[in-house]
């Protein structure tokens, strides 16, 4: 097993998110056991794991959509354990949920503006960021008046990401952004994730597509049936034999 290395380029930046001994359950079914992890400002961290490992549950617990059973979440020096989802957004944690979850009957433009709901008083910033998002995703600008439900899967994913960017994320949580997309679009989405991170957005990326996720990430965690079984710089994980066998399929 590879060990945590100190060679990460963000070794000196401050810690943005600390998760300590987090447990989550659905009714009697325990899903996350004693999960601990840490993300530093500027990092791109991937969590890989098989179908049903608990990746979505982890992100839902972080953003407050799901209550934790035990443990603590500290984000930007604030204890946000069991904060409601709408208040973690105000703190700067923006979650792009699994399956995109755009507001299908509303226009593309309205979807994006709702992303800035928490910041609606700062209209200048919102207008500028709308322009940024439209230049990042020109296809959305073309279709800004169209109902979000009429977009293709890839376009909806872009919309979901753009909508989260309008929340001015300190940390962007991405849940399987490549799910259900054609290979070419998957490349596109991963390119955008890299670009966003290069621009300074801290990202926690959850993926079943472990190879691509680890290829863009600084560090990775492996989640197996609700437990973090290993964590290391992404490159080490890509070369680790056990990880390759279990998650990369070669």
């Amino acid at each position, binding site marked *: 097993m590879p060990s945590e290395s100190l060679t990460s380029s963000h070794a000196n930046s401050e810690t943005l998110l600390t998760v300590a001994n987090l447990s989550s359950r659905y009714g009697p079914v325990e899903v996350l056991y004693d999960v601990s992890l840490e993300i530093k400002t500027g990092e791109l961290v991937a969590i890989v794991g098989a179908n049903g490992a608990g990746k979505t549950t982890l992100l839902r617990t972080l*953003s*407050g*959509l799901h209550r934790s059973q035990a443990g603590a979440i500290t984000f930007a020096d604030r204890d946000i354990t069991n904060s*409601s*989802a*709408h*208040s973690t*957004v*105000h703190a700067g944690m*923006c*979650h792009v*949920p699994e399956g995109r*979850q*755009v*507001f*299908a*009957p*509303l226009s593309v433009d*309205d979807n994006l*503006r*709702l*992303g800035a*709901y*928490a910041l*609606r008083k700062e209209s200048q910033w919102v207008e500028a960021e709308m322009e940024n998002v439209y230049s990042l995703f020109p296809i959305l600008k073309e279709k800004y008046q169209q109902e979000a*439900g009429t977009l293709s899967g890839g376009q909806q994913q872009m919309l979901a990401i753009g*909508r*989260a960017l309008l*929340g001015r994320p300190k940390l962007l949580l991405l849940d399987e952004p490549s799910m259900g997309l054609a290979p070419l679009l998957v490349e596109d989405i991963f390119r955008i994730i890299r670009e966003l991170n290069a621009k300074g957005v801290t990202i926690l990326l959850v993926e079943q597509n472990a190879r691509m996720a680890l290829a863009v990430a600084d560090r990775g965690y492996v989640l197996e049936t609700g437990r973090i079984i290993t964590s290391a710089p992404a490159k080490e994980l890509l070369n680790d034999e056990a990880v390759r066998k279990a998650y990369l399929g070669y």
Partner: protein
Amino acid sequence: MFDQILQFLITGLTTGAIYALVALGFTIIYNASDVVNFAQGEFVMMGAMSTVFLAAGDNGLPTPLAATLSVVLVICVGIFLQRFAIAPARGASVVTTIIITIGASIFLRGLALVVWGKDIHGMTPFSGETPIHIGQATLLPQNIWVMGGTAVMVLAVHYFFHYTMQGKAILACSYNRDAASLMGINVGLMMMVAYGLSALLGAMAGILVAPISFTSYDAGVMLGLKGFSAAILGGMGNPMGAVVGGLLLGLIESLSAGLISSGYKDAIGFIILLLVLFIRPSGLMGKRSSDRV
């Protein structure tokens, strides 16, 4: 004959406007929370009854003030209903929430009976009773109040949901609660706003129509039923449908009362509702059920 028809149209549109407001109240709550609020008629009754009592007697408040206070009171009732009866039952089946709202309506009616008694009350029309003659037909100032007031409120509701961030936030909650809260929208608060808005529409309807139709502790039963029918007729969940359904139901009733017999007007309204549902199960302007997200 023409004048007679015109008279039926005036009466029908006035009643229809009230049905439309009640139906719009049903629609807003249904869209926001998937709940069919059978206490909607009680909002109407409480708006009228509390205005009557606040304005009554020598020390009574001036009608505009009494009406304003009543609207505020009914809004509070709407918010309470959401917060303490609907919200705790989140995730319950449709049948459960229907039982809750029916229970709430019985409770509110009982409360009204205890507080205000069972007498029937009238209200002085807002701008006198001098009729305006159009040929042989007459239009009372209160008819204009009802139709004009309804028009203003329908437009205001339209504006709210289509042009304000708060309105769109409520829509977002109704389309996808989780995603809405990930936008920083406080879903619980938005639900209270939706119920408050719905209560406001109900109370206004009650106050506008009280000078024409009288009111009593149980006046909400029939109005609630009619508003519900109107919402179904137009297509449950479609605000435009609620308004069209309300006006149409009012017109159908008034024309069948005038041209056939007033004893049959409710039955005819009901038969037409069934016919429409038979031909278009989702109502006149409703989406087909497969289109719903």
